[in-house]
């Protein structure tokens, strides 16, 4: 077991790669009474075209399958796994993103029993045609619930506008039609391919004794049989850098229009320290351009073009990345014009100084230090960073090194008219 100390943060991380390839990280937190454990596979909604383990031909599986699989992991021959966690007084949950599926629990008691329950249920699949079909009604209602949420529709609508081919444009849960085609066999194929320990990461944080916990996990994994790991072979079609659709409008039963401008990133194939630096620089650049201290924000606020729903965000993963700026507004066209003008002006001269960059760096450093209080944040972010070959604990030192020029360079990733798309949600009776 390796021991890594982060002095500035006053944290110690324990790490071991087990014989079956599983990465295990343990971070004890002084003074905490709960333990939080996440068990995550590097497999999400975008992994839909791949060569199944032990085969040679590329296949494409139905949309929404990673999320469907996540649901079905909780049902076993002897009942629902939630029941077991409840007995142990632990809250269990799971989520599926574009790139990851995570299973997790938190509890203040019976931590070894809960950890064992987590490892077992994720590593012992049980799918039958009957249980798979039964789940379609439940997930159908989950999809319908999201269908009625204008913010979700706008978020996905904007992403859909940006991408020609990349599966990030497909809703994580799929549609009622696509999930209808999912079978138990599909689930086994995806499970066997992507849930191998060598494609997974276990993170234990909170009230935990590291040596004892590592022994416990090592013994558990040694007692289970796994196939030899084979390299994963995923396929993604070539994706042009320009957006697929420039503008779309959707009518929903809302009281006020919503508008979002999406910026498709050109720089999307970084990993490791380069990605960390780029991502942090983009976050700072975005906030300096559109955040609450920016000249842009003051202008649109005083012109009554935005309300408290205004937000800006930048996301980056291997293969795709985008910035989003949006708000509820009674004048979507005017707001979009303001955003586009700001972007155009920024191409010739950025509306902030090196001093502003220093201030934003301090804000972000404060954010990471605050986030060290949240064991959920640490576990989830650490896993996401690791899957991109980055280290969460490098964020603060990397921030400290960033310069104005780094920010300027990073922002070129979203420059250009061809990177921009607009998605508008209008009330039922209103027409653009």
């Amino acid at each position, binding site marked *: 077991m390796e021991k890594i100390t982060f002095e*500035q943060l*006053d944290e110690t991380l324990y790490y071991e790669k087990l014989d079956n390839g599983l990465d295990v990280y343990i971070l004890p937190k*002084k*003074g*905490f*009474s*709960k333990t939080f454990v996440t068990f995550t596979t590097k497999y999400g909604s975008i992994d839909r075209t791949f060569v199944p383990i032990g085969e040679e031909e590329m296949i494409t599986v139905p949309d929404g399958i990673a999320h469907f699989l996540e649901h079905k992991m909780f049902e076993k021959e002897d009942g*629902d796994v*939630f*029941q077991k966690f*409840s007995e142990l*007084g*632990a*809250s*269990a949950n799971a989520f599926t993103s574009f790139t990851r599926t995570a299973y997790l629990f*938190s*509890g203040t*008691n019976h931590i070894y029993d809960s950890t064992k329950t987590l490892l077992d249920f994720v590593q012992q699949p049980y799918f039958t045609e009957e249980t798979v079909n*039964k*789940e379609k*009604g*439940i*997930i*159908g*209602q*989950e999809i*319908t*619930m999201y*269908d*009625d949420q204008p*913010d979700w529709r706008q978020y996905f609508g904007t992403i859909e506008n940006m991408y020609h081919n990349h599966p990030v444009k497909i809703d994580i849960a799929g549609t009622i039609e696509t999930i209808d085609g999912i079978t138990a066999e599909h689930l086994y194929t995806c499970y066997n391919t992507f849930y191998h320990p060598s494609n997974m990461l276990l993170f234990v944080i909170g009230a935990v004794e590291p040596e004892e916990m590592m022994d416990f996990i090592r013994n558990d994994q040694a007692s289970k049989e796994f196939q030899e790991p084979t390299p994963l072979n995923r396929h993604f079609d070539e994706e042009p850098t320009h957006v697929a659709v420039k503008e779309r409008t959707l009518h929903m*039963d*809302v*009281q*006020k229009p919503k508008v979002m401008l999406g910026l498709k990133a050109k720089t999307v194939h970084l990993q490791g320290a380069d990605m960390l630096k780029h991502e942090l620089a983009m976050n700072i650049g975005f906030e300096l351009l559109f955040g*609450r*201290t*920016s*000249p842009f*924000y*003051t202008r649109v*606020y*005083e012109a*009554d073009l935005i*309300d*408290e*729903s205004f937000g800006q965000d930048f996301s980056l993963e291997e293969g795709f990345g985008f910035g989003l700026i949006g708000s*509820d507004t009674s004048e979507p066209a005017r707001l979009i014009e303001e955003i586009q003008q700001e972007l155009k002006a920024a191409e010739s001269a950025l509306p902030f100084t090196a001093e502003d960059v220093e*201030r*934003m760096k*301090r*804000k*972000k*450093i*404060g954010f990471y*230090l*605050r986030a*060290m*209080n949240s064991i959920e944040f640490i576990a989830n972010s650490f896993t996401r960073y690791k899957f991109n070959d980055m280290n969460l604990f490098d964020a603060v030192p990397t921030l400290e090194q960033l310069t104005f020029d780094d920010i300027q360079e990073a922002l070129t990733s979203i420059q250009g008219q061809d990177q921009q798309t607009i998605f508008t949600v209008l009330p*039922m009776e209103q027409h653009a």
Partner: protein
Amino acid sequence: MFTTIQLAKGVQLHVHPTTQFKTVNFSIKWRAPLTDEAAAARTVLTNVLQHSNAKYDTTAAFRSYLDDLYGTVLYFDTAKRGNEHTVLLNVETVNDQYLKNANVLQEVLQTIHTSVFEPNVDEAGQFKEAIVNREREMVVQRIQSIFDDKTRYAQQQLTKLMRPNHAASISANGSLEAVKALTVADVTAAYHDMLLHDRIDIYVVGDVQPDEMATRLKQELPFADRDAQPLEAIPASTTEFEYVREQQDMKQGKLHIGYSTSVRFGDDDFAAMQIFNGMFGGYPHAKLFMNVREKESLAYYASSSYSGHYGLVFVLAGIEAANEEKAYTLIQQQLTAMQQGDMTELELAQTKAMLTNQLKEALDSARGQIEVYDQYKELDEQFSIDTWAARWDRITLDDVARMAKYVTLEKVYFLSGKEQE
């Protein structure tokens, strides 16, 4: 956990010195009787105070200053509990120990002073009209946006049906009408009223000393003595049974069911009613989740919540509109089953374990410590997790069945899509 020191009559400081967190957290709570007008005025007031102050007279200047202090978080908000309305100021800043050559805490204490005692007012001492107008509009938009969130909208409609013109249905933001009617003078008056008359609780969690904190806060927050009268209890009330349906352009059916109960926060049976709610629909092992979702695949979410201050129990489920009757019947059957004692010791044990765990976990965040203590200290000044868990532990299945009988169906509200033309 917290040491309480009286800073002035009606002004209590509660400090929890701990090295568990890398930040210091402050929460100041001003409490006044809950009325629609007060809620509206105080909400716009919080927006105005958050916008700017005499020292930093624009949002950009104020936010830039806070960003410079290593992204110190500072925000005003409003909330309600029972018949009380709360204005709160939450502040979180990084502990100086983790920063290179910084003395952030001192500056943050001064900023709290500035935010509260040095408002951005004109020569006549009134808030500035342009700021009040714009922030009032922000609150209007916030209230109107509930319509776009169909679950929140349905819950709001159900509560209004059950307890019209009552603390249970008054929003912490106030109503649209009350907010729109506000003038600069109303907001300014609300500000002075709050500073002079509200009962105040100040919480501090972090690596600080209680006595030293008391001295510094007395300086930065010089609140005068005030008469803090305990509020009158909310009288019990019920309405006739009604089943209301509404249609909008949407896909899912939102089934919201309201029950009333005589058991309230502070009653001897309060702990038993918490267990009832947990077993009914509070967790994934509960009756509603297991039957409505897992057995019948009718819903993705089906849960219950217990509002102890108002004696109300709510059930929420998102279903296909065609399954309305089936889901309604199934939910009602779960309550009947519990009234008839059709429950297992396992369900009871699971619920006790989950409730206890949830309370313990809440203490792993500074905000959680403040909220748990702030709530439970009203029940018992000597509140501790262990004593409260022991109360849950004594509850039997007979107690839960008795609680289920105290739960009476009052209103059903079903929001769904329009018929296809």
